[in-house]
Every structure is written in structure tokens, then in C-alpha cells.
């Protein structure tokens, strides 16, 4: 114990050098292990949500972009398909279909245009308020509600896609009618609306003054029998309320309206295979299995990981060599101290303990800290990864 006391005093006196060495050893040990743990956990997480999403249909394009947008509501919008694709899947009787339109945002939170089936599909439940029932209503994920600082009774407004997009996305003011329970998934960040509400935001549907009424006379450009042509002075509504909801309408065929994806949920392998077969030769559409896309993505990540780990190991070895150089120089600098202890009559064991304590303590502390960091990474890695892939 007495020699350990001397060792402790030495380390304490040289605490900055000791701290730097401990940090270096910690990083050498932790970097490859921690990286491995993070990659394993991210693999599991990516795979888990992908496996819970059987099939995704969309227009031909990047399967990765499609999968990330559909599963994690990423801002890269895939090639668009139409609502007809959802209807066609339903009509095959092979799988229920959920339309998804993930293009717009409320500040940084994605607006997910979908149907009520999505909530039961993901097992999402309300924490407050009620489900959306009419056009224009929004239900928020727990984190989205927290970040936007809103709850049932408040409103959210869709954001323009670009500050220069004056005539583009409709800034729709939407009442928040419900907030979902925390699900620890990408759904927590979403602002859910009916897919038709998403189309209103896109400008495919709108509501305005009734031009047949006298108070809208200023907005009439010309009348041609029953046809009334409005001018630019017609007031459009930027919020759907019980008073104006009847004035909201869509121009064109709904089946041709855009979707970013259709989630298909075949009940069995056979239905899944049959459904996939239908899209095999399609030139316009694609059907992807998110698990396969994620597996490919993970293969790429693992390949990159190997390079990163190789780099980390190389840097680690260089750092280790430097650390041992520091140890060697330290021992050399302490030669006179060693001689003094010997002359006084210190035992071989005591002097050995005092001299090697720096190396042993630094290595032990470094490895223990690395293990602690690895444990923390294992415990909280999920949270970090979710934050990164949201």
C-alpha cells in the first residue's frame, strides 16, 4: 500500500501528463470497439423498422431514397407515384395499401400525409386529444409536439420549400387535434395529416370565396352562363375551418395525385411474392423490400466501417507507440530517482512498483474508461443512432 501511495502521488503530481496518456489509451481501445458497437446497434435498428415495413411501391427511382423517405421521412423526396398505385394494390386483394406523401415540413418536422391505417400499422396511440377526422387537421408525434411547442387546440403552419417559392407550396394553417405517445421511432418527429391535406398544401386542392355570392363580386373576372371565372382578387383560405371546409375542392382526378410511396402489407409470403411479381417488369413503378434495401445499405456501411476501423487501429497503434515512447522517456527521466531509492535501500519490489505504476495505472485507467464508454455506447447508442438517422 505504501508504494501504491507513492505511485498515486506521482500520478497526481503529473496529472496533466497522466490525463493525456489516459485519454490516449482510452481512445485507442474505445474507437474500434465503440465503432463496432454503434454499427451493430444501427444495423439492428435500421433492420428492425425495415422488417416491420413489408413492401413499398413507388415510381422508378432510387430504392434507398424511397426506403429512407418512407421509413424515416428523410428530406430527399423520391420519384413520385400516384394515388392510383394505392388503389391498384387494394384492388389486387393481395395486400392492404397505405398511401404516403412525405414531402412538406413544418419547420424541421416532416409532414406525413397518410391515412388512419398508418397509425394501426405502426401501433401508434394517442397520448392527448383525438385522431384527425376532417381535412386540414394534424396529429403530432411526441417529439414534434415538444419541438414545435404545441398541443391539441394549437395550430401548425406548413413551411415553404424555398424562400423563393412564392407561388409554390401553400402555407396551410392546421389545427393540432392530437399528440401521439412516444414510440422511440421516426414517427415521434412527424406531423401527420390526411393525404388530402398534403395535397392541399401542394396546391392541388384549395378553398376560396363563393363567387356566386354578392360579396365576392370583386373577384369575378367574367360569367359565362353557369361558369364563373375568378380573377386574382379572389380570397383563398389558408386554413380549413368548419365554416369554409365545404369550399375546399380538388381540381382533377384524385387517382392521378402524387404520392411518394405506397406501403403494401401482404398477409403472407405467397401474396408478397405475387405482388412483387406484378412489378417485376414494370417500367414506371418499382416495389422494394425495405429489409433488402437496408441490408445492401448495411453492407456498404460495413465495408466503410472496415476502412474506418483500419484507420482507427492504425492511428491507435501510432498513439500507442507514442504513449510507450512517453513511458520509456519517463522511466529514463526517473533513473536518478530509481538510483536514490536503491541507495536508500528500497526493496526491488517497491522500486519496481513505484517505477511501473505510471504505466500500469495509465493502461488500467485507459482500458477501464474505454470499457465504461463502451458500456455507455451500448446503453445509450440507440438514442444516439436514432438522433443521427432521423
Amino acid at each position, binding site marked *: 500500500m505504501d508504494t501504491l501511495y507513492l505511485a498515486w502521488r506521482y500520478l497526481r503530481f503529473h496529472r496533466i501528463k497522466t490525463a493525456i496518456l489516459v485519454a490516449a489509451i482510452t481512445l485507442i481501445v474505445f474507437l474500434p470497439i465503440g465503432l463496432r458497437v454503434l454499427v451493430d446497434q444501427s444495423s439492428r435498428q435500421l433492420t428492425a423498422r425495415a422488417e416491420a415495413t413489408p413492401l413499398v411501391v413507388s415510381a422508378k427511382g432510387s430504392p434507398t431514397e424511397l426506403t429512407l423517405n418512407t421509413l424515416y421521412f428523410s428530406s430527399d423526396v423520391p420519384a413520385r407515384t400516384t394515388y392510383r398505385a394505392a388503389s391498384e394494390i387494394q384492388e389486387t386483394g393481395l395486400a392492404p395499401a397505405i398511401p404516403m406523401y412525405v414531402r412538406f415540413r413544418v419547420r424541421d418536422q416532416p409532414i406525413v400525409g397518410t391515412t388512419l391505417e398508418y397509425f394501426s400499422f405502426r401501433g401508434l396511440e394517442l397520448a392527448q386529444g383525438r385522431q384527425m377526422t376532417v381535412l386540414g387537421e394534424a396529429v403530432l408525434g411526441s417529439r414534434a409536439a415538444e419541438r414545435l411547442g404545441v398541443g391539441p387546440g394549437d395550430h401548425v403552419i406548413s413551411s415553404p420549400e424555398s424562400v423563393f417559392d412564392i407561388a409554390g407550396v401553400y402555407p396551410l394553417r392546421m389545427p393540432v387535434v392530437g399528440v401521439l405517445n412516444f414510440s422511440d421511432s421516426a414517427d415521434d418527429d412527424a406531423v401527420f395529416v390526411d393525404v388530402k391535406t398534403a395535397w392541399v398544401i401542394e396546391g392541388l386542392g384549395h378553398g376560396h370565396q363563393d363567387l356566386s355570392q354578392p360579396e365576392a363580386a370583386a373577384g369575378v373576372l367574367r360569367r359565362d352562363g353557369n361558369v364563373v371565372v375568378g380573377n386574382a382578387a379572389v380570397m383563398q383560405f389558408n386554413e380549413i375551418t368548419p365554416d369554409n371546409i365545404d369550399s375546399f375542392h380538388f381540381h382533377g382526378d384524385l387517382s392521378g395525385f402524387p404520392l411518394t410511396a405506397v406501403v403494401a402489407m401482404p398477409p403472407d409470403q405467397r401474396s408478397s411474392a405475387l405482388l412483387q411479381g406484378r412489378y417485376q417488369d414494370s417500367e414506371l413503378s418499382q416495389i422494394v423490400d425495405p429489409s433488402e434495401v437496408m441490408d445492401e445499405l448495411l453492407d456498404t456501411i460495413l465495408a466503410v466501417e472496415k476502412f474506418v476501423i483500419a484507420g482507427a487501429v492504425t492511428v491507435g497503434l501510432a498513439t500507442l507507440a507514442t504513449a510507450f515512447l512517453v513511458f520509456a522517456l519517463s522511466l529514463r527521466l526517473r533513473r536518478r530517482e530509481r538510483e536514490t531509492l536503491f*541507495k*536508500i535501500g*528500497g526493496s526491488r519490489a517497491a522500486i519496481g512498483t513505484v517505477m511501473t505504476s505510471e504505466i500500469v495505472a495509465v493502461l488500467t485507467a485507459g482500458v477501464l474508461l474505454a470499457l465504461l464508454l463502451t458500456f455507455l455506447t451500448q446503453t445509450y447508442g440507440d438514442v444516439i443512432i436514432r438522433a443521427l438517422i432521423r
Partner: protein
Amino acid sequence: MVRIEGLRFRYGEGDFHLDIPELQVEDGDTTAFIGPSGSGKTTLLNLIAGIIRPETGRVETRGVEVSSLPDADRRRFRITTVGLVFQEFELLEYLSVLDNILLPYRLHSALSLDSEVRERARSLAERVGIADKLDRHPRRLSQGERQRVAVCRAVLTDPPLLLTDEPTGNLDPVNRERVLDILFDYVRESRTTLVSVTHDHEILSRFGRVVDFRDFHSTGVAEVSPGDEEGGGA
């Protein structure tokens, strides 16, 4: 107390060699070794302490033939029997004054550090005037204070033999006198045997015996005998 017979020592293949047919230092003696650098004074101290071993001959201290002991026993002998004071003090920079004084008790299982030893360390520090600096590190002490710490460390185990190598070599006259007063007061009170290497002829009057190595180098070897030592270098 210290008896040397037929001692011969050399460092490797170099020219230096030390031959001492016979030398005896009695209990309670205060003996100074003087002589030019390289004449073997410090080497002889190291041989007496068992730090190094002679090629031939006997070095016996308090009835123990130190030169024939194995390394572990010589270490035990030094830590229990010999107090060492060095010219450069050789304090450990990372230890406080108190921990430096207590150092021998942390280096060998032959010594046991207890409250009595701690109290003795404090008492010694008070006696040499550094009691208020026990928590300081050596770099925050003056040269004189450092040597006083080194003296406390050397005498803490109450050794019967005190070996000092140029103990005042790095001190100004005031501190030199103070350190010597402390050393000689201690030696007188505890009847400790003191053997000291020095170049400082001004302090030789304090010693009971002086051995001048120069007198014995005319033939190329240091041949020391009790009769020649008396007042030889004064």
C-alpha cells in the same frame, strides 16, 4: 563499527581502482574523507553502505559482513542501518516535505510506518526549522531547507551509521553551518557514527578524524591506515 580489510575495487575495465588494506571506524566516530575528485571517497561510502561490492576484501559494519550479503539483504541492511545524505539532496519532487521524510518507511517491508514514526518525522522537522513547510513540495523550498529535509529523511530510522556525501556542497555559508549543527547535534545525542565525504576544508575541525585520500595516491592507490588518517588533510 566499520572494518575494512584487504579491499580492492575497480569500475569495469577503467583505470580507476581503489585499494584499502585496512580501515576501521569506531562507534560514535565522526570521520571526514577528503581528497581530490576521483580518488575514491564516494566509492568507499558506497562500499560501506553495500551499494556496490568490492572485487576482493571485506567490508564489515556492526559485525555484519556487508560485502558478502546478497542484494536483498544489503538493501535491508541499508534501510535499517544506514542513513544517507547526498550533495544534491535527492528529494522526490512529487512528494511533500513530510512524505519525503517518511520515504524510507514506504520502500521496504523491514520498516513499518505508524503514528509514532509520523510523530517522530514531525518532531525532526520542527527541530530543523521546517515544521511549517511539511505540505510543500521540494521545488518550493530553499537549498538549505531541502538539505534539512534530506537530513531528516536520513535520520528518521535512527540509523547507527550516517553516511553523508558532500552534505554542504550546495549550500551557502549560513545554511552550511546550520545543516552541520543539525547533523553534529544529532550524532552527538544519538551516538551515531558519521562518515562524511567533503571538499570543504573549513568544516574539517568539526570532525574527530580526517582521512585524506591524496596522501595515498602517490603510489597510484589509496592505501589508508588509521595512523595515517589522523589529521592528514587538515
